[in-house]
């Protein structure tokens, strides 16, 4: 029953806000949904289930946890970018009135030499351990060294200042090129470069160098009529969630540990904390509180083991909440990067070779997401000759964490500018040039896999047809740019349980932290199967004792995978409902059919609600669980059209109009899909134009407040128009693809291309802030 809906007809519902006379309706449709298939619940826009709690202040976030006897803590952090810890004397702190306990790395069991799963990949336990509390050396300014529990946070802070730490400062390596140079200060004595997957005995800051290759790029470049090669840098930026990290822990008298925290993965917190503290996972219960944003940055474990240790020492529950400076200096960020790209094409427009060289700053410990950067850098293009080299480089900055499509935005900033430049040199429209070379089903990605059904072409076509692309562009120093980007969708593992209530509603239990409305998008998929309204499902995110294992809310997987578990559990409910209906209808269960919540056999029928009411009479409670480990993941392409105005006197870039296009497979709740696209775009704009860690000569961040680490405000942005493209993912029951991340990939490149078209200058470093743009305009570069 595939129907092609006219996009103009499918949009009206979304935009009630602007259309009732007081404010004039916009002259164009700001939010389009190019739907390919209609369902009853999936694709509608119900009010989210947790909405009332979140607009009244009742929703409880991590820092809101209160309980009798609660102590508050403070973490002491390294003032040096790189230093040996000579000694730590905690006696003065411990003697302060109101202080209950102080912990340092010596209170942690020594790290075994083993590999741990930290949510979206594996790393050495020693690295996780060392980042939680520094042992022997501090590797960045802001590195946690000790922690205090006291009657309140002020006393704890005062006590932390009384801890006497003697440091011997060491030389530091602050950027990838610096850290890779000969004679660079080494962060880890035992770090030897893995070269092409093989261990070497080279002590270095380069944790890994590897290469992917298809075809022969030299041959490809030899055939090309045009070759462009350029190098690009991007500054370190932060995920910037508004809620600081926090953790409250109670080490109970029976040895059981209960942790309340804001995290993207309660089970990851449980498992990593158990590994660090060397206690069985079953001894820890993690209750995920509401979370105030994460974007990948709330996957790592920072405070939980420390709060647990403090609780063990004091016999009281202990709460730790980071300050904003702690967040900026001690968590995240996303890697700064140094990327060179070389692309060749023949007249007429076919790309003959692509080559990328990516060095990413992992921060203090290996693991910079350079690998996904390398996988994504040319993922929008089908090319026979591609070579990509990746370098994972440790530097004296905070250990980097995932940030929305980690690694891909830096890569696209480089690749999509070179693509644009070649299109210009060949005299081909930039979207036409991309379309001519676009990846499609069967194209091979440089790291090996062949794409299944993907929507790269459909996204580019939607951009080309979008009214924005053809709209006149007025004014001096104005320019329009485009770019596209790719990001994956991961499966991992999810669990879900449904229980039918006697009034015909259904309780849904799941374990995926809800950062942006996923309770609802998961409930909607169960509702669709059951043939009942979304409002009749009551979704709850519960603790790790109360639901089956569920992986992180990350990798654009929650609506995709936990929604799938809900779908499967609902299908089991339907099967059981058929058995119950058979009893009520006095028919054979095999002959019962189900459609939209009505069960029929032999000309009679009974509703979901009636069966629910009669459950006790027909065999007892109706409940079902399902777990999934999906494989049919659907990667997503996103594209932007952006208009900018450059002020040549100040270098300030204003975004005049911004359109975000993305293939989402199927938009389960289009409003929240648009929200992801708009939010990712806004983060991409901040990354493009403002955000940056300014590092001082001492290796410390100079702008560690939200005044100076300047994220976009409402006044900095225009409306962000969206165009949802739906190319169903054949691997998912409703065709869902990952939605949350691909949208941050193209904005910096699209804006750079727009600046080029506005003032004829190609910016090769992020951020493209007023001084950089002014200088480019004034100096001709």
């Amino acid at each position: 029953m595939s129907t092609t809906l006219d996009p103009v007809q499918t949009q009206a519902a979304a935009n009630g806000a602007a259309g009732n006379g007081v404010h004039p309706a916009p002259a164009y449709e700001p939010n389009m949904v190019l739907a390919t298939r209609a369902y009853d619940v999936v694709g509608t826009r119900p009010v989210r289930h947790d909405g009332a709690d979140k607009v009244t202040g009742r929703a409880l976030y991590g820092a809101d946890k209160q309980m009798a006897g609660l102590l508050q803590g403070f973490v002491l952090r390294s003032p040096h970018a790189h230093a040996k810890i000579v000694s730590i004397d905690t006696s003065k702190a411990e003697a302060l009135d109101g202080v209950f306990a102080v912990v340092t790395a010596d209170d942690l069991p020594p790290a075994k030499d083993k590999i741990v799963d930290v949510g979206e990949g594996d790393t050495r336990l020693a690295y996780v351990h060392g980042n939680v509390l520094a042992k022997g050396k501090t590797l960045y300014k802001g590195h946690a060294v000790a922690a205090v529990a006291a009657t309140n946070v002020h006393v704890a802070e005062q006590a932390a200042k009384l801890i006497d730490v003697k440091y011997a400062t060491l030389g530091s390596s602050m950027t990838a090129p610096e850290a890779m140079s000969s004679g660079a200060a080494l962060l880890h004595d035992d770090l030897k470069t893995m070269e092409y997957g093989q261990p070497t005995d080279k002590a270095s800051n380069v944790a890994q160098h590897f290469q992917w290759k298809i075809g022969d790029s030299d041959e490809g470049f030899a055939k090309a009529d045009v070759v462009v090669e350029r190098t690009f840098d991007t500054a370190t930026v932060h995920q910037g969630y508004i809620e600081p990290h926090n953790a409250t822990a109670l080490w109970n008298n029976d040895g059981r540990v209960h942790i309340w925290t804001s995290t993207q993965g309660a089970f990851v917190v449980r498992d990593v904390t158990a590994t660090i503290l060397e206690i069985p996972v079953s001894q820890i219960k993690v209750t995920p509180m509401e979370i105030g944003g994460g974007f990948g940055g709330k996957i790592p474990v920072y405070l939980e083991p420390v709060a647990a240790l403090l609780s063990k020492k004091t016999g009281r529950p202990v709460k730790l909440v980071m300050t904003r400076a702690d967040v900026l200096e001690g968590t995240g960020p996303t890697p700064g990067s140094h990327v060179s790209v070389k692309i060749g094409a023949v007249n007429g427009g076919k790309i003959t070779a692509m080559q990328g060289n990516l060095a990413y700053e992992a921060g203090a410990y290996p693991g910079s997401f350079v690998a996904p950067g390398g996988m994504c850098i040319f993922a929008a293009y089908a090319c026979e000759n591609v070579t990509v080299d990746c370098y994972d480089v440790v530097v004296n900055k905070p250990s980097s964490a995932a940030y929305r499509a980690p690694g891909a935005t830096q890569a696209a900033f480089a690749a999509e500018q070179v693509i644009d430049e070649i299109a210009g040199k060949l005299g081909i429209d930039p979207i036409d040039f991309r379309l001519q070379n676009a990846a499609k089903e069967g194209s091979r990605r440089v790291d090996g896999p062949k794409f299944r059904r993907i929507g790269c072409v459909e996204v580019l076509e939607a951009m080309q047809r979008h009214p924005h692309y053809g709209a006149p562009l007025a004014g001096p120093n104005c320019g329009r740019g485009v770019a596209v980007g790719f990001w994956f969708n991961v499966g991992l593992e999810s669990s879900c349980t449904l229980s039918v209530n006697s009034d015909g509603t259904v309780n849904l239990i799941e374990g995926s932290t809800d950062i942006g409305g996923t309770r609802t998008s998961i409930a909607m998929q169960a509702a669709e199967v059951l043939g009942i309204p979304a409002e009749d499902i009551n979704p709850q995110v519960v603790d790790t004792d109360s639901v089956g294992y569920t992986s992180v809310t990350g990798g654009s997987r929650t609506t995709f995978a936990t929604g799938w578990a809900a779908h499967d559990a609902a299908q089991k409910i339907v099967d059981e409902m058929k058995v119950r209906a058979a009893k009520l209808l006095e028919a054979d269960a095999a002959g019962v059919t189900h459609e939209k919540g009505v069960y029929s056999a032999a000309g009679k029928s009974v509703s979901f609600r009636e069966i629910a009411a009669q459950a006790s009479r027909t065999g007892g409670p109706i409940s079902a669980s399902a777990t999934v480990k999906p494989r049919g993941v659907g990667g997503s392409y996103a594209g932007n059209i952006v208009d900018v105005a450059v002020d040549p006197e100040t270098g300030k870039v204003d975004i005049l109009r911004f359109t975000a296009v993305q293939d989402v497979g199927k938009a389960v709740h289009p409003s929240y899909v648009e929200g992801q696209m708009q939010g990712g775009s806004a983060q991409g704009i901040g990354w493009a134009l403002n955000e940056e860690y300014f590092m001082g000569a001492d290796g410390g961040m100079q702008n560690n407040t939200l005044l100076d680490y300047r994220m976009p405000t409402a006044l900095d942005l225009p409306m962000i128009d969206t165009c949802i493209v739906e190319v169903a993912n054949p691997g998912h029951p409703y065709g869902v693809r990952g939605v949350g991340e691909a949208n941050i990939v193209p904005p910096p490149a699209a804006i750079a291309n727009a600046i080029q078209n506005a003032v004829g200058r190609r910016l090769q470093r992020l951020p493209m802030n007023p001084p950089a743009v002014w200088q480019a305009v004034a100096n001709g570069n």
Partner: protein
Amino acid sequence: MKKTQVQTIVNGRPVEFLCEPRQSLLEVLRDNLSLTGTKEGCNDGNCGACTVEMDGRIVPSCLVLGVEAEGAQIVTIEGIALGSGLHEVQKAFLEGAALQCGVCTPGFIVATKALLEQNPNPTEHEIRFWLANNLCRCTGYDKIVRSVQAAACRLQEEAPA
């Protein structure tokens, strides 16, 4: 540290509390009065998550000392809803999907209510200007601005002619 006794009106009811002179109003609301709907994002006046109304003006409560609240009338997010119902601004935020993680939402709702009381029919620019001290990292502000517009429309329709 010696505590000071402070008398205020919070969400329309007289409230008395003891606080240390170094405690911010934000800390007092959250820790002393258990009004945790007001959020902390930065503790230095730069995110707006802690926005409350104090004597008719919106302020970042992290930049006000608890002792400064003596004699003041304070409205927090917990005081916005009308009885068991919701304020039009709250309804508009829900219907317009103006929140994702929701941690910025209390501050935005308090600030929006104050805006619409002063300026019932703001332009898009006026909305963006007024809300520029409230950071939201999730939404890109689009749906927030549209929801403020929707709330303005509804409140104007409701207002006696």
